[in-house]
């Protein structure tokens, strides 16, 4: 009897101690019939809320949206960010996936579906990039990463994942791809154009070498004249290439100053004199004496040299190349006009584009690349000006470009 009382007393004592621990918040849980009842729930809840908040901020930092798909029903749970991304109304309930899938562009949808099905089979994480057309018509690139969640039997019970908007990355990727394709084309044209004057050169040397003793003075004179053309065209091309590479690497210095346009054009007209004389072409400079422009001398000399040598190259023999200029508003518009083979619209529209670069032979078979005009555009744009051309086949071409007159008006159009 005393033993039983003793046990009861001890139990009572324990129960009192337990109650005291609960009352003074020194207990974490009460053990009931087969289960644990947690006390201090606020604390647990707070920890949960903190962890949820941390996860949310981490998603925010990565601009990631989250989703959960039930493969059995095909229903989806989304987060507000995903709906903002897709420009769809948000709901905190499960929704049909159809409206989400319908936004994915046709062939991309097949890829997304295939990736999901694959993941459902092998239980492995997957990643798909696809395009969606939003209700406002905008097309966005998304990257979707998903993880199949399995139950104890290994069945996939849900897919959980995140979505990031990668439109900007894709745009940069496209630009890069375009730039690389452009560069490849550029190199192939340059290589081709370097080859032709060089082959000419090589042939002349072979003839000289092979027939050295039998060759007449007159022949030598003719050959050296041709060699000179080849050499000049090579030199010109190399010069342009060098300039181009400087521009592309951003190391060409842009140092504009006020200078006389008349002076600039005269200097350049003299440079092409030897070529124009060959075809009896008159170069007429009709630039008013008082025209001042605010330009980088070296760059504009290069522009004029290229336009003038082009004009001479495509002029008919015994014709005239005219340079005129006039002030229009805060810019000076310069025109280089020739009477020559001209261009049709097809050639015209390709003129200033690297990826469409092409070259034509001149009226005396002169070689060239489209590189010169690209450089011209590059330099004129740097000055805040514009460059364009009018042309009629078999009649001639007019190249126009504009230059600023004063420093602060470089940005003025």
């Amino acid at each position, binding site marked *: 009897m005393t033993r039983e009382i003793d046990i009861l007393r001890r139990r009572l004592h324990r129960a009192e101690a337990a109650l005291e621990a609960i009352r003074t918040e020194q207990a974490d*849980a009460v053990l009931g019939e087969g289960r*644990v009842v947690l006390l*201090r729930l606020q604390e647990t809840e707070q920890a949960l809320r903190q962890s949820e908040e941390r996860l949310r901020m981490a998603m925010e930092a990565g601009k990631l949206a989250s989703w959960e798909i039930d493969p059995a029903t095909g229903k989806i749970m989304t987060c507000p960010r995903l709906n903002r991304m897709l420009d769809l109304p948000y709901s905190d309930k499960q929704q049909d996936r159809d409206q989400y899938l319908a936004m994915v562009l046709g062939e991309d949808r097949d890829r997304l579906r295939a990736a999901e099905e694959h993941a459902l089979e092998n239980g492995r994480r997957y990643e798909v990039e696809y395009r969606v057309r939003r209700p406002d018509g905008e097309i966005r690139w998304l990257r979707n990463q998903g993880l199949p969640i399995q139950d104890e039997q290994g069945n996939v019970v849900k897919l959980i994942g995140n979505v990031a908007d990668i439109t900007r990355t894709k745009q940069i990727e496209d630009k890069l791809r375009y730039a690389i394709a452009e560069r490849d084309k550029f190199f192939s044209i340059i290589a081709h154009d370097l080859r032709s004057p060089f082959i000419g050169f090589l042939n002349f040397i072979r003839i000289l070498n092979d027939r050295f003793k039998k060759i007449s003075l007159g022949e030598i004179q003719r050959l050296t004249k041709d060699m000179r053309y080849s050499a000049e065209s090579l030199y010109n091309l190399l010069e342009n290439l060098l300039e181009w590479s400087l521009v592309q690497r951003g190391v060409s210095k842009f140092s504009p100053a006020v200078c006389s346009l008349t002076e600039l054009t005269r200097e350049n007209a003299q440079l092409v004199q030897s070529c124009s004389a060959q075809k009896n072409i008159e170069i007429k400079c009709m630039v008013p004496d008082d025209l001042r422009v605010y330009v980088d001398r070296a760059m504009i000399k290069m522009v004029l040299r290229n336009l003038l040598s082009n004009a001479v190259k495509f002029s008919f023999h015994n014709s005239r190349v005219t340079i005129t200029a006039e002030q229009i508003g805060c810019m000076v518009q310069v025109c280089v006009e020739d009477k020559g083979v001209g261009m049709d619209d097809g050639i015209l529209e390709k003129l200033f584009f690297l990826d469409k670069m092409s070259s034509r032979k001149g009226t005396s078979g002169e070689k060239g690349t489209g590189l010169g005009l690209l450089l011209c555009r590059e330099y004129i744009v740097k000055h805040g000006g514009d460059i364009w051309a009018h042309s009629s086949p078999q009649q001639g071409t007019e190249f126009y470009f504009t230059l600023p007159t004063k420093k602060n008006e470089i940005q003025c159009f």
Partner: protein
Amino acid sequence: MRKSHDSSQSTNEYSFILFVTGNGLNSRIARKSLAQICEQELAGRCSIEIVDVFEDFSAAVKYNILVTPTLLMLRPEPEVVIIGNLRDLEKLRTALRLDEGDGP
């Protein structure tokens, strides 16, 4: 989560079982206090078993545990049950009879 402070459990002078729930605040405090006592005055003389009731509920039933944390001292006899977070080390020492015989 079972861990023994000393593998030669049966030969130790002191033997404890501490019942906790996961990483709850009071459970953490209790674990720390017990570890402190066992590393100081009971160093090398005790074994501890920690039972997380989430993982081993049956052990809690076996020892009639009502709340966590609860500390059982099985040896030296008589058995002692201490309920609460064991924050007060002095009280803990007294309850475990560690003061006896250590006095001047």
